[in-house]
């Protein structure tokens, strides 16, 4: 669909597309507004007044900081594991033709293709069966499982571009397997891996469904928010945290976009 630059879109289509985008964005903007409200007990609109005091209150809440810290650590380690596993899978699938590569792709996609609750409950019952107590590492195990696909999707597209004659050219010029990886493959897939890693981080940072099953008494930031949603304690603090979370997740998404915009698009099938 590239031929018709001059055609203007029909008005109806413009309105429908614009309204669709507005539908996606207005609720998030509303969160920003509520972060400044003076109303504590209800979700009154329009807010009766505006204040900055809840930012200070939130800043001084140790439970928010603890949840945030846990989420960052879980996301960092899960991303690291997913980077290794996803890259290995993508390399194997794209560099060689072997029996069962379709199966591998399916296996990688399965943890996000199946509803999160199934992954969660399966891991939980496996932990209890193997008598593994819930810990930081049980959360990481769950997160890394569904983060692999994000790295994989980003890497596999780029690997396809590098594979073939570039690798042969490198070997032809005297580079052995390790040199070829170091000087040719890595620089070419680097940005895709970085983008995949950022998305994996965002995915892990935000995950709640699997986490409710694999976390014991620990609260990641989403778990903290879920508790506030079910049993609100201090609504304005939740408002502020929600706004900060939105801003924080925008960063890796924008970063991933700028890293991959020249070539393959960021894999949307992430969650």
């Amino acid at each position: 669909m590239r031929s018709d630059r001059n055609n203007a879109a029909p008005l109806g289509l413009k309105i429908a597309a614009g309204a669709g985008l507005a539908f996606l964005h207005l609720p998030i903007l509303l969160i920003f507004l509520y972060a400044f409200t003076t109303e504590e007990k209800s979700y009154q609109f329009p807010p009766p007044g505006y204040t900055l005091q809840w930012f200070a209150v939130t800043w001084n809440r140790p439970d928010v900081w603890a949840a945030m810290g846990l989420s960052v650590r879980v996301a960092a380690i899960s991303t690291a594991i997913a980077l290794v596993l996803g890259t290995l899978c993508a390399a194997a699938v794209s560099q060689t033709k072997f029996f069962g590569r379709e199966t591998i792709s399916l296996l990688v996609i399965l943890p996000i293709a199946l509803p999160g609750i199934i992954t969660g409950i399966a891991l939980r019952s496996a932990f209890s069966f193997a008598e593994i107590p819930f810990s930081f590492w049980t959360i990481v195990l769950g997160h890394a499982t569904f983060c692999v696909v994000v790295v994989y999707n980003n890497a596999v597209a780029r690997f396809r571009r590098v594979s073939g004659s570039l690798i042969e050219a490198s070997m032809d010029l005297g580079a052995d397997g390790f040199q070829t990886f170091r000087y040719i493959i890595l620089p070419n897939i680097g940005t895709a891996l970085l983008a995949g890693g950022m998305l994996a981080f965002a995915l892990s940072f935000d995950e709640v469904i699997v986490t409710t099953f694999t976390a014991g008494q620990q609260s990641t930031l989403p778990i903290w928010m879920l508790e506030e949603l079910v049993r609100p304690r201090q609504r304005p603090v939740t408002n502020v945290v929600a706004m900060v979370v939105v801003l924080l997740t925008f960063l890796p998404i924008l970063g991933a976009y700028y890293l991959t915009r020249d070539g393959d698009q960021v894999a949307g099938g992430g969650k």
Partner: protein
Amino acid sequence: MTIAADTSILARRENTSGRLSDFFWRNPKILLLLMLTPPLLWLGVIYLGSLFALLLQSFFSIDDFSGLINYEFTLATYRQLLIPSNFDIILRTVVMAVLVTLASAVIAFPIAYYAARYARGKWKVIFYLGVMLPLWSSYLVKVYAWKLILAKEGIVTWALAKLNLLWVLDAWLSLPVVGGTSLSISYTGTFIVFIYVWMPFMILPIQAALERVPGNLIEASADLGGHPAQTFRYVLFPLALPGIIAGSIFTFSLTLGDYIIPQIIGSSRLFIGQAVYAQQGTAGNIPLAAAFTVVPIVIMGLYLWMAKRQGAFDAL
């Protein structure tokens, strides 16, 4: 051009990396095996293993008196799925998933179509990020935003009051099934939030499918006397269908398994996800919880199989 070698075969590099490199070059299968072992151990053994263990438990039953699991093969748990109260849950969830998928496709199509056919340069980027940012925004924050919007004292009520249209809302809420005491505790509310949260997953696959359609195909249809509606029906829609199916895999699967949205925004009637959560948690009936999870797995299995036959995976 000073570096000349007079041998045709260069000497083997006698360091570790040189030797390893030669070894892997001679035995590419071993390299492949080494690369595949860690991910296969993780995904194939830990993840699939857990999944199978869970499915296995659905063939056990729970002793009604002691509350302990009876490790004998039985289909009794599956029969339990079919009792009216449980079957209602399944039906309710599937109907909701179908409606959410259809509505998502309807809302997503114009956005995807505009982005694929008309948006250029800067606008292309704006559309792309305009979809990606909400898609990747925190799930809970999005649900929370709707709690704010749909609350009785929230923006919807306020806006309708300003427009003197509150009676419309009241009339809608007094309807059976879709109504309720307020939007945030009705199926309508659940439905809206499901669409909001999962619809972005529909846009990108449709857009990808439409971008593969040459623009002159649409002109050709118009040229042959095709009315816009006919062009849509016979040219555009069939070409976008693989994208719609690919997107629906997400909207359908994600709705089937969600247990948080209906818990926060909706009536007290359960969805599959909530039933699984309740059965494994408070009720402690792992076999029934496992049997419930089999339902979305089977439905998604069938769905993926059909989608594959339609060639939808190319649009993913």
